[in-house]
């Protein structure tokens, strides 16, 4: 049994933009040179600003975004799936193993279906149960695991608050008993007061069921609390990856350090806005040459404009893509 549930080698996703009449068709370079491994049972965090490609990466793993180059291998412990060349009969088996929790719990649930029907739908579509009794039994089990009352199952989504809706979405993703879940900004639309509730639920699912999570978020403070490993993306490339504690103790890429210092602090006597990022993330159609971060980097030098930094290991579990990672004191 392989230790990695997802292995990605040199992945690229490019979207051609139609409508260009002259010259070559412009291309959105959503992902380039992605190399990473997600270990079984891990809570893997993926962070970056909007436009960094984190959602595209999550979708590529779920076979919901095109793969222009490279390879994604999904291994659920029994069977290996090559996402590029997934045979038709394997697609269903793969979809059962890998599920997605969406960002907006208000848009993700059909207003015309009862909570019971929403949660039962995957079972019915994939024909995973033999009778309606069995389906209902399964729905009730999952609902109670996600702390929904049996009472709630007969109601429609409009009757629920954001936090409750997100629990319904999680129950639906969980009902087919997957081994891997992509949670794409699943607490971004929630109030801070109930965000913790959803995070604790996901964490307990990881611990009790051995589920593997790819947790996509723009919020480093949330990621710091739930994830085992964090990868930071910028404009379609990985810039840094390390175990959470290691990364938060010492950042080796200026972008990670800048993201961290932008988090609003409750500490009234200490403004730690050490590094301020000017401007915004550039367009992925014409990404900057060399290191894509050089236009906003306070430490950029001539070399950064010319040469793309290699994605390299600083030690056995800390990777970075910066020419000066060894010299900078962040």
């Amino acid at each position, binding site marked *: 049994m392989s230790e990695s549930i997802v292995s990605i080698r040199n992945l690229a996703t490019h979207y051609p933009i139609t409508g260009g009449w002259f010259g070559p068709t412009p291309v959105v370079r959503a992902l380039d040179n992605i190399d990473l491994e997600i270990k079984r049972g891990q809570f893997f965090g993926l962070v970056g600003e909007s436009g960094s490609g984190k959602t595209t990466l999550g979708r590529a793993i779920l076979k919901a975004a095109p793969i222009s180059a490279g390879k994604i291998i999904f291994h659920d412990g029994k069977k290996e799936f090559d996402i590029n060349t997934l045979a038709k009969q394997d697609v269903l088996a793969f979809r059962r193993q890998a599920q997605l929790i969406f960002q907006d719990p208000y848009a993700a649930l059909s207003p015309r279906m009862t909570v019971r029907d929403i949660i039962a739908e995957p079972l019915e579509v994939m024909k995973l149960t033999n009778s309606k009794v069995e389906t209902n039994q399964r729905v009730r089990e999952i609902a109670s695991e996600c702390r929904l009352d049996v009472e709630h199952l007969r109601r429609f989504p409009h009757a629920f608050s954001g936090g409750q809706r997100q629990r319904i979405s999680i129950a639906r993703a969980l009902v087919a008993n997957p081994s891997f879940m992509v949670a794409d900004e699943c607490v971004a639309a929630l109030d*801070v007061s109930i965000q913790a509730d959803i*995070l604790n639920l996901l964490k307990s699912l990881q611990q009790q069921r051995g589920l593997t999570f790819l947790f996509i978020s723009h919020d480093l403070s949330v990621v710091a609390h739930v994830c085992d490993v964090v990868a930071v993306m910028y404009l379609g490339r990985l810039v840094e990856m390390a175990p959470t504690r290691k990364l938060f103790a010492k950042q080796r890429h200026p972008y990670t350090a800048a993201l961290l210092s932008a988090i*609003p602090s*409750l500490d009234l006597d200490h403004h730690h806005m050490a590094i301020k990022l000017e401007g*915004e993330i550039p367009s992925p159609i014409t990404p900057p040459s060399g290191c894509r971060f050089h236009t906003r980097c306070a430490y950029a030098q001539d070399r950064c404009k010319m040469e793309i930094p290699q994605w390299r290991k600083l030690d056995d579990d800390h990777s970075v893509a910066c020419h000066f990672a060894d010299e900078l004191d962040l």
Partner: protein
Amino acid sequence: MGRPLISVRDLTIQFNTDEGTVTAVERVSFDIAPGEVMGLVGESGSGKSVTAKALMRLNAPNSFYGPDSRIILSLDDREIDVLALKSPSDLKIIRGGAVSMVFQEPMASFAPALTIGSQMAEALMIHLKVSKREAKTVAIDMLTRVGVSGASSRFDQYVVELSGGMRQRAMIAMALSTKPKLLIADEPTTALDVTIQAQVLELMQDLVEEFHMAILFITHDLGVIAQTADHIAVMYLGQLMETGTTRSVIHQPRHPYTRGLLNAIPKLDELDAPLVAVSGDIPSPLERPAGCVFHTRCSEVIKGRCATVEPEIKLVGQDHDVACFAVELADEERTEKAAP
């Protein structure tokens, strides 16, 4: 402290709906001094946006105000009774004149078919009674001031051509171009990335100093306003739970709800601390709990009291008010011990 810029007293706002009368805001009172930043904090459904909209009289036609509700806006030369304003020309002063607003979603706040510039100029021509050419100069100045690069070319662009951060800056520029005395910012950074949020928050702090304007800053995240606000008011289900200086509310939060909100924020320097949510969900405003509105989610309920009697908001320290029986009880016990 001198005369407050805006004084809200016993503000009660109700809505007539198909399902009955909904009380969105109940007996809310607060003052904002000139040049002060006031943070209004609460979950969705706590009534913070409805309160803010009342200051500009933007609530829907099915809303009505309680008989004792007063909102007084004090300008240099006169006092305006906001709730008594009737004609559209009288309302102009609180709608873009002395009071201006920045919304959460800048995409929804600009008309998509008109250029940014024409919308800014329109506001200026109405409120400052200037010519089109003068309006354009002021608008471009303002865009430059808030950090929109290439302001003169942005003037002729449409909102879809701008990125999220630029849209929010343009929104702020438009709101500030008439030099309002009070800016209402309703979750102005919630839709932005943390890096852009940091830029916008810093910009707002600079503008307060430069224009000496007051801000009513609405948010669900105490972390966002801790560095920005002078005073904080915590709202729950339409009522004020706790108000005070930012320092006292953040460092010595008294109300169980405020403490819950603070505990729920993931903190980077305490990675081992478990995340604690405020238990349960905010009840529907149609089913407002009796007694203290927070008692259904409170961990410090006093039996036979909180579920039946409504606590009043009372002074607990210098410039610090709390509406909670548990806090009252704790303070009484402390004074009894001190005086044998």
